[in-house]
């Protein structure tokens, strides 16, 4: 059978990836540079038996996505910086109530309205720390149109598997560029669905972690009645003020993600084997970094690229491996004034110099900027 090869925009690939993963609900409020995702799904979801709602704002969109997921639909919202800021309260609720869903943030320049049509990578820390309180965070950073598809499928899988919101952090360059993609056939990529309870409705405890850190999740409307709250709660879902339960549940909430580094954190190691200097990059900057590494290799400079497809949990073990291995330095190019670079420094633990290369003028980091800096290491 011939492959289904299509020439697609990055945002369209997210929409198609979502459908492949089983997403059947989208609620959002249009914002550049994410709008094409909503446009595409407005046309496609109804035909796939799904629902599309344009909400009154991003706050309501996030709330609708959580509600739809509680009723059993895999759900997506798509936005950019200013909209992402508005989603934070309900995103925190989603983490606390352990509701699987996927949030796409096509990053543009900021703060505030910033540069709507220009790229940015300045929401890295917001993704992790936007919602208040200790909470789990999974955030993925595709850098090709094909990865926009596959990482969207992975985002849904991780959200279902770990019962938590997952963020796709892409940027205007990747969202708006077009390249050819081979659409995976049905069954070619794994699709994970949430684990449902196997007990009778009257015996169901929505946050019963006696069998593991991720409790089975019942869909509303299927006879299982339970309470969902943002307050600290016990296994029944009702609020609790018991310090021992607050403590154990808080720790479980964070642990269910942090303890599964190997399953969640995906990093591509390109020419790292014999590298004496490393560039750690993600999203559109990883494309520049790959060209920089190739150019340096031609000159005989042993450069390597660590390309993060997961940015949260932070790929600290991958970085530590090379820092401990004695590389001359690690360079972190990003379209902000220094976010991932601080985490990289923490992961390197002083074993090698870590340097940032920042650009915030709404243009992409050039391969020559990266190779020029790496060469000096």
């Amino acid at each position, binding site marked *: 059978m011939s492959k289904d090869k299509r*020439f697609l925009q990055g945002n369209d690939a997210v929409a198609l990836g979502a459908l492949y993963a089983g997403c059947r609900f989208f609620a959002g409020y249009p914002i550049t540079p994410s709008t094409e995702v909503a446009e595409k799904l407005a046309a496609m979801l109804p035909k796939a038996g799904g629902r599309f709602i344009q909400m009154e704002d991003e706050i309501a969109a996030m709330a609708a996505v959580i509600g739809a997921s509680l009723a059993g639909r895999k759900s997506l919202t798509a936005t950019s910086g200013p909209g992402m800021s508005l989603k934070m309260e309900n995103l925190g609720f989603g983490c606390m109530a352990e509701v699987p869903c996927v949030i796409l943030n096509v990053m543009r320049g900021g703060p505030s309205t910033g540069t709507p049509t220009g790229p940015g990578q300045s929401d890295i820390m917001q993704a992790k720390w936007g919602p208040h309180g200790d909470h789990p965070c999974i955030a993925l950073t595709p850098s090709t149109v094909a990865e926009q598809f596959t990482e969207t499928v992975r985002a849904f899988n991780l959200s279902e598997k770990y019962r938590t919101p997952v963020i796709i952090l892409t940027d205007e*360059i990747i969202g708006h*560029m077009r*390249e050819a993609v081979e659409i995976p056939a049905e069954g070619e990529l794994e699709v994970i669905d949430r684990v449902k309870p196997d007990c009778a409705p009257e015996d169901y405890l929505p946050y019963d972690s006696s069998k593991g850190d991720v409790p089975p999740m019942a869909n509303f409307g299927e006879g299982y009645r339970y309470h969902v709250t943002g307050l600290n709660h016990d296994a029944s879902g009702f609020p609790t003020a018991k310090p021992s339960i607050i403590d154990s549940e808080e720790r479980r909430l964070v642990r269910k993600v942090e303890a599964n580094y190997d399953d969640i954190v995906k990093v591509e190691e390109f020419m790292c084997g014999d590298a004496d200097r490393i560039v750690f990059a993600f999203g559109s900057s990883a494309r520049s970094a*790959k060209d920089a590494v190739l150019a340096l290799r031609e000159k005989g400079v042993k450069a390597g690229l660590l390309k993060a497809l997961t940015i949260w949990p932070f790929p600290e073990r991958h970085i530590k491996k090379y820092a401990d291995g004695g590389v001359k330095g690690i360079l972190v190019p990003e379209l902000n004034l220094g976010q991932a670079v601080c985490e990289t420094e923490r992961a390197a633990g002083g074993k090698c110099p870590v340097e940032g290369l920042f650009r915030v003028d709404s243009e992409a980091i*050039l391969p020559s900027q990266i190779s020029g800096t790496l060469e000096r290491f």
Partner: protein
Amino acid sequence: MSRYEIRLSGSGGQGMITAGIILANAASIYEGKNAVQSQSYGPEARGGASKAEVIISDEEINFPKVTSPDFLVALTQEAYDKYSKDIKPGSTVVVDGAFVKNTGGGDFRLYSMPVTGTVLERLGKQLGANIATIAAANAIGGFVSEEALLKSVLSMIPKGTEDFNRKAYGIGLELAAEALGRGPGKGL
């Protein structure tokens, strides 16, 4: 071919982004090459200088932006002034001579043709000028086969507009043949 960079520019709404998508689609889907298309535009939907960029290569394309075009198309003076500064020495430039009056001189081969006016005159509307432009640019630049490009045009336009767009495509080929017949100029 190794990395070849094409920049298509004009005024927002003239369809240069669509033209870029059509070209890149032809290269990647119909000719099996690697192609990336990107664009930049202002917040306004119409007017202002707008550009689409296409990179075609037999090798993997990582950096998706054009840094020094091998081939530039400019339909307006504003677009020419904004997007011609970084063209590669020895590159090819195609302009709509009715709107681009001043290119200065330089190390490039210039082809000038009245593409917007001819489409308006023969088809009664400017719509279609982007199809004529990409047909002309491809005839001069030889990025993809004429067959692949036409197939790509027909796959991307709204149903019912095939005849109109075929005519526009034909106008582009004619204008390119005339321009090639005159030979490249050194500047306007």
